[in-house]
């Protein structure tokens, strides 16, 4: 599967959330899973869930469940496997939102 990097224009057209808003929502979701206060405060596109936020890899499935609930989307197994960083996760969320809207 090829990941489509959404342009902001496309993004705004189809969904009510922009990338910054998704990252902000994502931050609220991952917060309970991490004890890295400083890394959480500086969360950005380059943040890696396991290396930077020290999230237990077993909890990644719980984060995906929380994302599904929060954004009202469904995430398939292939997408789930890629959701290791904020960047990849944001892109997948945006993609699913776009698919829903389309």
């Amino acid at each position, binding site marked *: 599967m090829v990941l489509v990097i959404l342009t902001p224009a496309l993004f705004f057209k189809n969904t009510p959330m922009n990338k910054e808003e998704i990252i902000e929502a994502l931050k609220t979701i991952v917060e*309970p*899973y991490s004890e890295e206060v400083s890394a959480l405060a500086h969360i950005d596109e380059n943040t890696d869930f396991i290396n930077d936020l020290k999230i237990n890899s*077993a*909890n990644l*499935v*719980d984060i995906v*469940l929380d994302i599904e609930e929060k954004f009202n989307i469904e995430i398939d197994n292939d997408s789930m496997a890629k959701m290791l960083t904020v960047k990849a996760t944001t892109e997948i969320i945006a993609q699913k939102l776009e698919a829903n809207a389309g």
Partner: protein
Amino acid sequence: MGNRVVITGLGVCAPNGTTIDEFSDAIKKGLSGIRHQPDLEALNFSCQIAGKPVLSEERISQYFTPLELRNLNSTGIIYGVIAGLDAWKDAGLTIENNEEPDWDSGTIFGAGTSGIDKFRWAINKIDALEIKKLGSSVVIQTMASGVSAFISGKLGLGNQVSTNSSACATGAESILLAYERIKTGQATRMLAGSTSDSGPYIWGGFDAMKVCTFKHNHEPEKGSRPMSETASGFVPGSGAGALVLESLESAVARKAKIYGEVLGGHINSGGQRGLGTMTAPNPTAVQRCIQIALKNAGIEAQEIDVINGHLTATTKDALEIENWKAALELPADDFPYINSVKGMIGHCIAASGSIECVASMLELSEGFIFPNINCEDLSPEVTTLIDAKCIPQTLIQQPINILAKASFGFGDINACIIFQKYTHE
């Protein structure tokens, strides 16, 4: 010979007390923790009374992180972690966040089953084709060793971490397994204990077997009647008990408070041969277990001051006393005191042995014998075997030196432990 092994910490989560102070006070006063359970009534249980520890959300949140609490649905793990961590703190031990685990400390924390409510939830999700919704919390809460895994992670234990399971003998067995490990020098300190879930899904099977009483739904506190003529089945209970076992050398070196010493014990099975079955004890095996425990501890029968019985309040109580009497070969008028915690808290299944050993350690260290409750009408079958004066119904305050504790379980299995008061030199 091996290391001498002493008990330096106690923790409990019982239906009549969830701290050592509360529990100690309750057993001295003969306070019952048996209450009417609306969920059992709603589900048409024959026995609608049970023993459940009472814990506030606030208390539970002191032992678990907010993330752990999010999907926590295993009462056994909650009880076990609370009792286990309390015992650790009671022993004067600290919880360090070191990089290295504590290689010399471990735990054997038993359970009959784990997270039965969580299991039910997961099964319903799976059957509703929502397997993905299980998340990561199902396995850790429903694996039998969930309780020892949670405790070990919180304490950073680096020695053996395991969960034993031997039905109603689980708690007593955990202590003997921990004792052996320290005695043989493989560990310095072991947290022993056991836990048992609450609720209809753990108690239902017993209700269906008709081994629980259905005659006291209107008077819960009178329902559990060990040694009584009107005993009509056990009252299901739940909770956890925990004891820190430690080599005497280590306890003395760190000037720890010592509740008592484990002199020895024995674990065996009747093999479901002779009179033994899946659910009935083989008397030969019970007697043998008690006799070998005495021999292992190096004591004579007449040295026993108090027996903390299994005594569940079924019609088998008299058989248990008959077995004690045959094993000890003592006359009716010179029999040790005998008591049962189950009159106050019901039968806490896998947790019974450990909670009852906590009670035993309090008796030894403080010098008292807690009263039996609900046996004002002693069974004549019992009183033909031993004098009524051996069955105290009010608190006795007196120093005791040696206490024998036994637990018996489904599968025809037995465990007997001999404890001695420790006198600080």
